[in-house]
């Protein structure tokens, strides 16, 4: 097979000369067209400026050229990247009806050539073999527009446009001076309305990857190529088994099931809102590979698309692709049939401002969500003066319809007197947990408001901050939690560009930010400050605060991670600036506990895995593992950080040896500088480290005990008392010492 070469300035035909019947130097569209008209070969090789065929580019080429070959392109190599062409993605909001999405890969990426081989929307520009008849009229001067036009001409003529990756050339990089390209592409789109939105990835590429829009911090969005997330195909109706077998080839990361009850199966697959898709299809409507690829592309056309179907009629459950992670956890595919289940999702999508991509589908208008009432859960664990200051601000920020619940240790008498000054405040005392997790969870579980504001008493809310946080829920779809901006905080809610000398200045800055950054929110994956407004429906899905952590930074980070994994957005509201007192000033037990924990980090993989409802944290401890009455009490006095670390080792051993059913209780007795919050924060994760729920773990009481002798004498009669080895005290003299390694012997009968 011989061809004529049209060589642009700076190109080098190299090996191609041997196969050429002529080499014509051309410069510009008119000359190229004239040269094509003058040549006699069926095929013409177009070499772009600076291009040179790579060795082996023409090996086996003849076998690739059939009667229907119109345009053949390959890999155009520049630097470390090889480009294979473009796909024409639909661009709904652009003056151009399509967007050129490059198909490119780093040089040497394994398997890429197999994936890009085959039909392609537009071939790469470096080296193109084209049917001479397609070149008789001048192409646009812009090289990219010329390639688009050439490929369109081929399709119009009923010819194929294919990518053969080994047909490769080295070329110079695309010229950054691409003036005129937009105009040329617009002219092309006006001339060829049929170009609009073909959006065909090479089949191999489409099977392996999707283009997804991601939002970067600060708001810029870009599209990145990611491996196709897992797909579950649920085939229903007559012939489902057979159709399911056929569907197995649709994607690499695919599970297929024939289901008798599609609605239930859909619900089951949506139980965990992980990153992935569920294709629900009747047996006769399972899409082919191209149809499936089109659905994937439709659902990934924007991050707010939640459902895609080939047409509006298919939304009755005959063929619909669902992105479960784009529905927050409280949304269910409700209804007895596939049609009703999908209809419930479609209705929810409209309310959540999620898009449904199905030609012919028109979403119903939904009224904008109203600003919702709140239950404010005030966590009082700081010095009373600080609590008084911040409580005043919280009460001032509340609305008359809001419910305020103050959570505090049972014994915090001064704080309770402060709280009593506000008759509208309901007090929920916590009698055993220095981190207040149990009482906070009770308060959250019983909340009447549609929003639950969790506000620690070391956080000062300037005027209007709470209102702006709740306003965010009326604005941002699927919002699970809204944090204020917290100067210096370690999570995504932290801001660094705010400096103030005192609280008066803070209030001034907060007021300014309320104007300059009005309605501005930054999505975050990590939050650590116990000042957050959470949608009650989200709390109901994920449960309360993990008792193992309490509302410490780790506990709040865990809460945020569960929210994100359950499909909820979490944001920092930049128009709501608050102040958090330093732990040294507030003496907050919760803040002090933070020091005992590693700094949390966002876990994108955990979020992508989705939230399993089995991990839901009950608001009230379950009765599944009732605590046994204690017959053995082990005292672990702790006076300093060193002893706390030793106690952690002991408690870890005890937690391995016993669980909640054992008649053993560990009493961590604080008789020194360590506070109960820090101690609880250090020991709780130890108790749950094996994945055991805190309620099922060994009972550990953390108590501040200034007088160990009094504690000893107050022990219930009949309880055998021990002291942890290495923690002995004079007041506990005579109690048998028990070492971690001998804990297993503790319950064995002892000869008296």
């Amino acid at each position, binding site marked *: 097979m011989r061809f004529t070469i049209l060589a642009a300035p700076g190109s080098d035909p190299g090996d191609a000369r041997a196969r050429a019947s002529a080499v014509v130097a051309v410069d510009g569209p008119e000359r190229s067209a004239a040269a094509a008209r003058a040549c006699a070969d069926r095929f013409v090789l177009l070499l772009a400026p600076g291009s040179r065929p790579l060795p082996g580019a023409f090996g086996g080429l003849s076998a690739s050229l059939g009667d229907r070959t119109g345009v053949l392109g390959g890999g155009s190599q520049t*630097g470390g990247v090889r480009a294979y062409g473009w796909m024409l993605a*639909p*661009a*709904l*909001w*652009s*003056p*151009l*009806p399509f*967007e050129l999405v490059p198909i490119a890969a780093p040089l040497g990426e394994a398997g890429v050539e197999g994936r890009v081989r085959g039909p392609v929307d537009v071939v790469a520009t470096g080296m193109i073999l084209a049917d001479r008849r397609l070149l008789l009229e001048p192409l646009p001067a812009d090289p990219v527009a010329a390639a688009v036009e050439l490929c369109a001409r081929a399709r119009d003529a009923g010819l194929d446009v294919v990518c053969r990756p080994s047909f490769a050339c080295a070329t110079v990089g695309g010229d*950054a*001076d*691409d*003036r*005129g*390209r*937009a*105009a*040329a592409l*617009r*002219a092309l789109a006006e001339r060829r309305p049929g170009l*609009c939105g073909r959006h065909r990835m090479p089949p191999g590429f489409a099977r392996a990857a999707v283009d997804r*829009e991601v*939002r970067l911090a*600060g*708001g*810029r*969005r870009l599209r990145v190529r990611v491996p196709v997330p897992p797909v579950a195909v649920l085939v229903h109706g007559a012939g489902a088994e057979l159709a399911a077998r056929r569907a197995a080839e649709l994607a690499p990361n695919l599970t297929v099931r024939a289901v008798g009850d599609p609605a239930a199966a859909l619900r089951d697959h949506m139980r965990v809102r992980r990153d992935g898709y569920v294709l629900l299809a009747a047996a006769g409507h399972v899409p082919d590979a191209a149809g499936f690829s089109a659905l994937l592309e*439709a659902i990934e056309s*924007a*991050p*707010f698309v939640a459902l895609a179907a080939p047409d509006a009629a298919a939304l009755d459950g005959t063929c619909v692709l669902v992105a479960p992670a784009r529905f927050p956890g409280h949304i269910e595919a409700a209804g007895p049939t596939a049609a009703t289940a999908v209809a419930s999702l479609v209705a929810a999508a409209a309310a959540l*401002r*999620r*898009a*449904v*991509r*199905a*030609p012919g*589908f*028109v*979403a119903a*208008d939904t009224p*904008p969500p109203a600003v919702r009432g709140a239950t404010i859960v005030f966590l009082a664990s700081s010095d009373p003066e600080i609590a008084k200051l911040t409580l005043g601000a919280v009460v001032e920020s509340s609305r008359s319809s809001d419910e305020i619940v103050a959570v505090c240790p049972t014994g915090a008498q001064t704080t309770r007197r402060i709280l009593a000054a506000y008759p509208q405040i309901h007090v929920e005392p916590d009698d055993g947990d220095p981190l207040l997790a149990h009482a906070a969870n009770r308060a959250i579980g019983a909340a009447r408001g549609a929003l639950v504001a969790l506000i620690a008493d070391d956080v000062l809310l300037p005027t209007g901050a709470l209102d702006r946080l709740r306003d965010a829920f009326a*604005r*941002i*779809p699927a919002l699970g939690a809204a944090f204020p901006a917290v100067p210096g905080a370690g999570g995504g809610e932290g801001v660094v*560009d705010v400096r103030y000398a005192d609280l008066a200045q803070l209030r001034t800055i907060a007021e300014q930010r309320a*104007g*300059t*950054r*009005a*309605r*501005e*929110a*930054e*999505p975050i994956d990590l939050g650590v400050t116990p000042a957050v407004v959470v949608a009650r429906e989200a709390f109901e899905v994920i449960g309360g605060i993990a008792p193992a952590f309490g509302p410490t930074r780790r506990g709040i980070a865990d809460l945020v991670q569960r929210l994100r994994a359950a499909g909820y957005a979490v*944001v920092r509201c930049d128009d709501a600036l608050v102040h958090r007192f330093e732990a040294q000033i507030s003496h907050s037990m919760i803040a002090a506990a933070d020091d005992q924990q590693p700094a949390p980090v966002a876990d994108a993989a955990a979020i992508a895995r989705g939230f399993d409802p089995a991990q839901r944290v009950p608001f009230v401890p379950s009765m599944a593992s009732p605590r046994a009455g204690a017959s053995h009490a082990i005292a672990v006095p702790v006076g300093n950080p060193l002893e706390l670390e030793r106690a952690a080792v002991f408690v870890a051993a005890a937690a391995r040896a016993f669980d909640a059913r054992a008649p053993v209780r560990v009493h961590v007795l604080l008789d020194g500088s360590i506070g109960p919050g820090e101690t609880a924060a250090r020991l709780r994760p130890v108790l749950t480290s094996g994945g055991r729920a805190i309620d099922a773990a060994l009972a550990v009481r953390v108590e501040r005990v200034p007088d160990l002798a009094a504690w000893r004498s107050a022990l219930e009669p009949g309880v055998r008392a021990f002291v942890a080895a290495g923690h002995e005290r004079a007041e506990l003299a005579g109690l048998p010492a028990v070492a971690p390694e001998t804990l297993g012997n503790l319950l064995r009968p002892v000869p008296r």
Partner: protein
Amino acid sequence: MRTHRTHQTIAPWSIGTPVTDPARLAVVRIEPVLRQRRPAFVLDFCVADARGMTIVPLVLADPATVAERDRDPLVFPAGMPGGDDFAAGLAERILPHLERLVLGGRQVFEHAVMFEDSPSFEAARDAGCFGAAPLRDALARLGPYFYARRFSHGRAVYLDAPDAVGGWALLRTSGTVMVAAARRDVAALAWYGPAPSAAGAPGAAEVAVVAGDADPGAAACVLRLDAGGARLAQTAGHVVEVIDPVPLDVGITFDPPEGPACRWFVVERAAEPRLRSVPPPHPTPIQGSSGRIVVLMGRADAGPRPSSDSDEARALIDALAAEGFDALLAESPDELAGADLVHVIGTRDGRRARAAVEAARRAGIPCAVHAYEEDAADGGWWGAEVARYCFEYGDDERDVQTYLAMLAQRAVAVGAARADGPYAPPEAGVDDAAAALRDASIVFAATEEEAGAVRARSGRRGPVTVVPPLAPAAMPQPIGALTGPDPFVLVHAPIGPLANQLLVARCASDAGIPLVLAGPVADASYLERVREFGGPRLVVLADEPAPGVAAALRFAAAVVVDAAWIGEGGARLAAAALAGARIAVADRRRFTVPGVAPRRFDPADATALRRALGEAWDEALRSPARAAPETAAALAPDSVVRAIARGYASIASPSVP
């Protein structure tokens, strides 16, 4: 309220009593556009009641934000009346419609949403008025008037051409504008406002925009528009094409490579700016030298994108030829055969420079290198890479300000480009450049400081000769039709990230200083950003001006700015100094010439740049300069060429004297 200061065409305006009650919203026009090469919406709001009408054009909206609502989706133009409540109220009314568009999954086309009957809007739409008609139409109509901005500042302007009322709306903030009675289109008057009528003839107008055979009177500057869309047959004057806009990235431009022309006009007469006196011609060369000298540019794109380095090379070749040498410019390091001496100009592309030096060594040919050493890895490449992101990353004015403040603190990082350590992209070939400097037979540096830097960076032990930059020279040509008659600030360099024009344009716009950017386009998207942020007094002369035009620009410019992250030698700065222009130069640049005290600034610091620009501008207007005698002596081309020739002689083979 989020605001932007981009694409400044006509700011929001009112007719009669301003209407700032969102309940009186009459019409919103919505158009999909390309903003920074991504789809966006432009919205024009028309709010009206019985007492008046307020038009807010060019409100920008990012479609994704309409759905995600992580911030206000609408970004209003600077000068938005009514404050935050008005903006929020307008947004509340149109957002449900925008949501339907974004979520609906259908192609969006330009359309208007009517909230109230608005005959004014409909008539204006039919008449192609800005704010009512599709931008492609409205901008093309305003094109000639947009061009006329460069002539109209502080002058009496007479308009007798189609769309004259729109022209009045565009030009009224810069001059005193009158519209011929016959051009006072009723629909346009109702839309733009009461354009003053010229009683009859153009009278004392200094600038006239006329159509067909209308009389421009004695105006010093005349633009004559096409009649009925046909290109004017007339050849007298400077023909300007109005490019069919692709809003917003390609708005009103007159740059033919941007697209097909949709209309034409001619600058029939234009007053020339005042040029400072031209220095006497070069002294006669001594002549008598011989030998073949091959000059090679140290960057491969110097041919299509000439800059200061290529000016210096061209000047050198001409001067060497005058001295009797056979001097020629080679395209690539492969073309050194037959040379008696190779002279590499710059080391921007280190691999290319090294290849040339090594090829010369292999062939036994002495090799000279003009170093242009400014340690680009120490912040130059970083700035070139990250600065544009400060304009592209956010999409409102506060974002831009925030990122520019971060840039000044060198707190912006993009990928590997960080300011807290050396950074250069692999293609810069930094080590190769150092090797080229080390191994060359002789290195020319512009200053002692640069010479020291060459030695320190490359470990060179051979000669480094200090030679001032060789300034290009040409007889000035007329430029009035391009720049207008007023003084301006000039940046003459390839338009792209390396030369930092975007920051200069932003600062000049902030300061209200007219700016002329001239040079080949290195990066079209960068040029789009420059136009986006450059404000109303920006003139872009895309593509390299002819030497005579470049010379005239230098002689007319009040200030010449070089804010480049990575410079290409000092030849153009030297020419500007010889032309008597004030100079503002990035503190990275090693430019020291007797008698010249340039304003120096940090090219990352917009505040510093604005201050330097303002001070140089004020100084230039207050006391127009001319080159000091010591400057002329130091930069005298003949002495520079002879110094270079002496350098040649020190390394030359026997055939080069």
